[in-house]
Structure formats: C-alpha cells, structure tokens
C-alpha cells in the first residue's frame, strides 16, 4: 500500500500517511479553501489502510499526530471525524491499538487548550507533547 504525502502550503498543512510506520501526521496551518475536498484523500487512505492492514507480530500501534500552528473551525470538525474513524478501524482489528499525539508550541496555550477540549469531547486519551 502506498503512502500519502502532501507538502504544506500557506493555507494547507503538510500531510504524511505512512503505511509502514503506521502513522498519520498533520502539520502546519490548516485552513484549506475547501476543507472537505482537501481531507477527502486522507479519509480514502484510511479506508484503504483498514482493508489492507495485517498484523505481523500480533501487536501494532497506529499513531495519529497533530502538530499545528493554526487550524480553523471547519478543520476542527474534520479532525474530530478523523479521530473517530481511527478509533473505529483499530477497534475492528484485533491487536491493533492507536495513539493520538497532540503537539503544541511551548507558549501556545490556545492550541493546547483546543487539544484538551477535543480529548474531553471524544473521550480519547491523548498525548500532549510540547516543542519549542
């Protein structure tokens, strides 16, 4: 299965979907002109991942990484859905687990805060990781 890699632009984040590393990373600024269209291929990739993933040694962790400077409210909605989908996929494969990693710049309280709110709302334990 192929990886999906999109370079960041002024209003779209960098996207890296890695089949081998079992990870999905969204990084930068997320405010695409058309949010739904932009993230459609990410959802497609996840669907494909769902149907191809095989467990080799019985245990695997899928990492969902968010490392954002800014995202708009439409993107927020999409992120919620992404987390839900990852939750569903891992639940349907025995031995597959997931982790949501929320990166934030040291002094960016707003990004940290919105991550916390997402955690509260989704009922998912998230890892909050600061960087400078």
């Amino acid at each position, binding site marked *: 299965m192929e990886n999906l890699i999109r370079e960041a632009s002024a*209003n779209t984040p960098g996207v890296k979907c890695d089949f081998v590393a079992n990870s999905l990373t969204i990084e930068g600024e997320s405010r695409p002109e058309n949010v739904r269209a932009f993230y459609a291929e990410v959802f497609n990739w996840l669907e494909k991942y769902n149907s191809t993933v095989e467990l080799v040694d019985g245990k695997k962790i899928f990492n969902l990484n968010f490392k954002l400077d800014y995202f708009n409210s439409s993107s*927020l*909605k999409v992120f*919620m859905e992404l987390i839900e989908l990852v939750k569903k996929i891992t639940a349907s494969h025995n031995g597959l687990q997931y982790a949501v990693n929320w990166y934030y710049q040291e002094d*960016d309280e*707003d990004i940290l805060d919105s991550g916390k*709110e997402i955690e509260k*709302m989704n009922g998912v334990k998230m890892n909050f990781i600061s960087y400078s």
Partner: protein
Amino acid sequence: MKPFRIILLICYALSVSAQNRSIDSLQALLNVSTNDTLSCDLNNQIAVEFRSINSDTSLLYAAKALVIAKSLSYHLGTAEAELNMGNVFLNTGQYKEAQKILINALNTFLKTKPFPSDVGMRVKKGLGNTYNTLGNVYYSEGDYDDALRCHENSLKVRKLINDEKGMAFSYNNIALICSRQGNYGDALKNHFESLKIKEKLGNKKGAAISYNNIGLIYKDQSRSDEALKNLKKALSIAKELKTPDVLATCYINIASIYVDQKRYDLALRENNHALEIGNEYHDEAIRSDALGNIGNVYYEQGKYKEALDKEMEALKLKEELEDAYGACSFMNTISRIYEKQGKTKEALKYGEKALALAFRIKAAKQIEECSGSLIGLYKKTGDYRKAYEMQDLSISIRDSILSSKNTKELIKQEINHRFQKQALADSINYANKRRLDDIANEQKLKAEKNKMIVLICGLALSLVAFAFIFNRFRVAKKQKNIIEMQGLYLSKAHSQLEEKSNEIKDSILYAKEIQNTFLKSLAGAQYFPYPTTLVYQPKDIVSGDFYWYKETNDTLFVAVGDSTGHGVPGAIISVLAIQTLEKLIANVANKSELHSLNKSMKAEFNSYNKRNAGVSIGLDYSIICISKAENKLYVSGSGQNVYVKMKNGKLDENKFDSINIGGADPYIYMPFTAMYSLEDVDAVIMFSDGIIDQKGGPEEERSGKKYGSRRFRDLIMKLNTKDNKAAEKAIETEIREWKGEREQLDDITVLALQIGSDNLHAIHKEKFITEHSTIPEAFFTLEADEIMNQHKLEMLLHLFKHKLKDFNLPMVAQKRAYAIIVEAMENAMRHSSKESGYMEIFHKFIIGNEEIEMFFGNFVRSDEVEELKKHLSFVKEENKDNLKKRMYEKASDGMPLSEKGGAGVGIFDMLIRSNGEFSYKLISINEHYYYLTQIRISYGKLNS
C-alpha cells in the same frame, strides 16, 4: 294646463360604432385574461359599454364581474359592479333594486383603500358616479330632497378629482331638481355652469340638453321668445347629432311653446314628429310624452273626446313606466277634460289624485296647476271651504315660484352667463385667471391688513414714546435748559425703543432655538441613518412647519407637519403637534392602519380648541413608518401629499384627504395607508404646501404664478437621490430662482429620505465604527471594502502577520487576532451573495497600544439571517465555558459540513478567543441584511 315635456338626465357621449369597436377589443382581452382582478375589471368595462345598447347584456357582464370580485374580496371591483347593476336597474325602471344596490356600492367604495393613486382616482370617480345614479333613482321616484343631496355629493366628489364631464352632468341634474322645486334662480345658475363646461369640452349633446332645459325654465317664466330661442338652438344641435331622445324632447318642448302662443297646428306638427321618433325607436317614454302633448293640443282646441283618448293612453304608459311626475300631469289634464265635459265627479277624482301625487313628489309647479283646477271644481260642488283652501294653496305656491327673489336671481344669472361666455371666448384660461386674480386680491387684502397691523403697532409705540417723553418733559420744564434736556430724553427714548425691539427679536431668536430642540431630522437616528435631504425654510424666524422622527431598533416613524399659521403662533402649535405625535404614536397598533392616527390627532386637537373658542389650532401632516421586520414602508397623513419614488422610475403620488384636524368633520374623507415593499422604494418625499403655493416665475408677471404640483413633481423626478446634499442644493436653488424678488408666502419644508440608497450600508458602517472604536492612538490601521477571495485573504494575512510582529505584541494576542481574522473572513466569504452582487466585504484592523480592534462587514441573505440571529442571541448570553462546550459539541456532532464548507462554529471560536469582547449590528438593507461586527483583543485580558 301647461303642456308636458320630458327632461333628460344622463347622456352618453359615445357613438354606437365606437362602442362596438371598443367592446370587441375588450372581449378579446377578456378571452385571454388569466388575471382574476383584470377579468373582473374587463367584465365591468364591457358592462359600461353595453349600458346604453342593451340592458340585459350589461346586467349580465356586471353580475359576472360582481361574482368574480366577491370571490376575490376585491372591493373596488365589487363596488364598480354594483354601480353598473344599479345603472341597469335605473334604466329599466327597477328603482327599489337600484336604490338598494347603489347604497351597497357607496359603502363598498367608501371602504376601499384609495391606493395607489390610480385606484384612488377610480374610487372617487366611482363614488361620484354612484351618487349621481342614486340621485337619478330618487329623482325618478319623485324624492327630490334625497335626489338633490345625492347630486350635490356627486358634484363635490367630482370637483375633488376635477372630473369636468361628470361635473357638467351634476350641475345639470341639480338644475333639474331646482326647477322641479320651483327654484328657477338656482336651476338657471346650475344649467349655465353645466353649459359652460360642456361647451368647453365640445360636448354637443350635453349642450343641446342644457339649451333645452334652459328653454323650459323660460317657458315656466312665461317668456316664450327666450324659451323658443333656446329650444330651437337645442333642436338644431339634436338634428345634427341625430340622437332620438334629445330630438323628441326638443320637438315636444317647442310644441308646448306653440300651444302657449295658441299656434295649435304648429304644435300638433311638432308633437307628431316626436311621436314618430318614439314609434321608430320603440321608446315608451317618448311615446307617452308625445301622446300626452297631442291630447293637450286637442284640449286647447276644444276637441275633448280626442283629447281624452290620447291622455288616457299616455297616462297608462306613464303608470307602466312608474313616472310619477308625468302621471300627475296627465291626471290633471284628464281632470280638466272631464270638467269641460261636465263630468264633475270624474274630474274631481282625477284632480284630487293628481294633487296627492304632486304633494308626494313635492313638485311645486304641479301643485300649483292641480290646486288651480280644483278651485273651480270645488266651487261647482258647493264645497266652498275646500275651494278656499285650494285658492290659498295655489296663490302661496305661485308666489313662491314667481317670487321677486327668483326673478331677480334669474336676470342676474342671465347677465352673468353672457358676460362669462364672452370672457370664455377671450381666453380659454379664463377660469384659471379668475382664480389667480382672487388669490391676488386676497394677498392684497392680506398685505393691507399687515400694513394696518404695522401702522397700529407703530402708532402704539409712538404713543408710548410720546407719553414717556411728555412725562419727562414736564419734569424737565422746571429746569432751565429745556432744549438740552429735550434732546437728551429724546435720544434716551429712542434707545429704549431700540432696546425693546432688540429684546423682542432676541426673544424670538431664543424661541427658534427652543423650537430647534424639538425638530428632529434623521441625522441623529441610531438605527435608520438614511441619507436625508432636508430643506426647511421658515417664512419668519420661527416656523409653523415641523419635522420629527421616532425610532426603535425595528421601527421608524417620520412626520412632516404644517401647523395653522406661521411665525410665533405656528411655532407654538408645531411644538404641541410634535408632543401630541410622540404621545399618540404608541397607540398605532397595526402599522397598516397608520391612518388611525388621524382620528386620535383630531380628537386631541379638537379638545384643545374646545378650551378656548377664540383659537383655531390644527395642522396638516404626513407620516411614514418603516418596519424592518415586515420589510415594509407605510405612508399616511391628512391634508398633504407624499411622493414615493420607486426604483423602477415611477413616482407614486399619495394624496391624503384632510380630516381637518382641529376643525369640523370634512365632507368627504377617505383615509388610507399606502404600503410598499422596502426594496421597491428609492426615496420617499414629504413636504408642506409651502413650496407648491410659492408665487414666482418670470419677473414681468407682477403677482407671479404658483409653483404648483406639476413643477414640483418634475423637480423630484430630476432629483439625484443618490446624493442627498446635491439634492438639497437643487431644491434650494429651484426655490430661490422661482421666487426671485418676491416675498416668501409660507413656511417651506421638503424632507426626502433616500431609503433605496446604495451606500446605505456605508453610512451604517461609519456610524458603527464611530460608536464602537475606542483606540485613542493607533499604531497601525488597515481598512478596505472589497470583493474577497482566497488569494486576497492570503495576502492580507501575510501583511497582518508581519505587522503584528513588527509591534512586538504578545504572541497570544498575535495568534488570536490572526485566528479571528481567518474565521471572520471565511465566514464573510461564505455568505457574500454572488447571485445578488453583494460581495463586498469590509474589514478594518486597528492595532493600538492596549488592544487590537477588528471590524468586519458583509451582506447576508435574508434566508440565512434567522440562523445567524439565533447564533448571535446565544453567544451574547453565554459565558466562555459554555461557548467552548457548545463549540466542541457541535464540531463532534457527526453532521457533515455545510454546503459552503462551514462548521457553523466560527462565531464561537471568535468569541472564545476575544474573551467575549464582541459587538454586532444587523441592518436590513433592501432584500439583504448587512452584518457588522467588532471584535477586540485586549492585551490585558489575554489570560483570563
């Protein structure tokens, strides 16, 4: 016995061929008409066309119109159908039915809103015609008092709308009744008025009828030559026109003169002409009159048997036609014939019947004739008491008919008519000129009066001064230096006088300041800052005119008023009027019944007047109401016109009848409230009559011409409603140039609201920013109103990001401002309507020492506004934690993004980031709303 004649009431000017053409095209229209009110109107129009051709067909179409109108609750159509049916009933002699349905028609017309102006015209025209027809019904039934009242009402309404043709009919009909009642002076006066109009309009048939009727009055006055002259004139016109009814009438009436002159052969010849016409056209009315008159000629010749045959036949026809007046005449003739034949009993029977009928229809002439014949009959039977009573009756009636007053009036009218006719020939503008002269005279009188007042005031002041000087003089006499003292006191008196005069002037100037505090132009409006053109020119320092407004965030009332009088008294009333409006406006529950204000205003002012019989305070005014919620403009008033300039270029003139606030009830008053959809309206123009009545024009015309409605209308149409200040200048220049060196006659007020102004949102925007911006000194300001796209947004964000960095602002503030701009701009872009072209988005960013202020403005479609309002009312109420909760709930509700890509939570996001420092305003503009927001980031509140 005076021979009988018929008199015509109504005439239709259309020729038959023209009618047929018109009917054909109307029917063609009716066949393709899918619009219900239109097909009702068409049915009514066809009914009118058939009125004089075929009664049954006319009734059929009118009934069809009535059914359609009733099913649509279409008042105007109902009233017109009722009128048409009433006309048919009158023509077919069904008087009771006619009376009933015409009274219905009157009521229906009176409850029809006379709006817009073309409907108003139709209502008034219909009202005039209904009164006229009803008058004819009463007349036909012999009820002259009610008939007269109806025709006078008809005349008043027709004068209101300057319906000259109708006025001519009304004058004619009034004259007929006056003549029947023996009031020949008024009869002749009204006939001449009627004739004057008919000749001016070139209505030949009408003129023939007038000449005929005038001839008859001379006949009743026993002036055969004058009578014959007028009747022959009528006949020659009737021959030219070939209209059977007029022609027959002329023959019969000329015959009656020949009888008076004892030229019986000639009389028989003329009456036979009439009978031929009656036979040819199967017209029973003409036949009965001709027969009756032939009988009469036989009577005069002593051929009693032949006479009785003819009279009996004629009487039978009259009774079938339910023509009381005619029947009465013939009964009386029959009585006389029996008397000659020695059959006293029969003679008495018919004589008494005739007299009773004459009393019932209150016909003076008939009473005189019947009572005259009965005297002899009673004497013959030995009943001297009754004979005496009859004598008494006969003499008193004759006296009243031939009273000196009547005769004098008659001569006066005759002279008047000759004079007026000459004047008419000299100038077709005769009537206008006379009116102008009247006004000029009135002005002269007024000027004289003013001069008198000045003189008296001057005299009084001189007396005061004199008394003062004299007193001082006496004191000073004791002293030696009289001359010196005199000079001293004189100059002192002078200076005191000057002081007094200055005091009065100061006092009036101060009164003006006070009045100004009551005058409210829209410049101070919070919610409705429409560009306003206001021209306010008092005749004196203070004014009887006023303007006023009152607003809530949804509703705006604006009024312009004109108090009775000007100067100080006018100003006092204007203040009272404003206070009364303030008080009473709250009682207007239903804005579409804005005219209900008229009644309460009137009640209030009439109660003021009751307190002091010596004053008469009142006003004319107009009022408008704009309701944002209903998206409507309502217009009403009393005694003023309000022009509404539509976006399609039409000018709608709303003429509001005066309810006579502060005075007696008006004769006719049709209150209404005009209603418009706001998006159709360009401007609404309210004005007092000062500009209309201002005299001016070319210098060589000494007294000047009235500016007039036509010129004002043209001025309004030319006015640049996009630019209120330019419009103001244009009106002021127009007034100045028109007036020239002449005096201003009255207070002038013109107030135009540019409701449809395209830059309305810009005005709101400026106001909003002024109200909300608090940054004393800005580091940086960026402002634009432009069509946004993603590319422009990127550039804007790039620039703003760098600026924020340049000023070294707190990082959180920078990030939040950035986030807010993104959300606000994305929202605005989503809602800017491509379809309507309202795509401009306004933004203004101000970076200050303590805070960042961001303003946004964009149009929102009215179907989206409810959703927005819901959000706004929620976010205004909730605290930050609840907002957060709501935002994340909504983001995780699993619903797809909106069609335009929004999650519907942007507004929460902005508010959370700004710590609730947010203001907004939603303004209804045309079919859209303009949504203005201000969001502030205060550096001091970043961590709260």
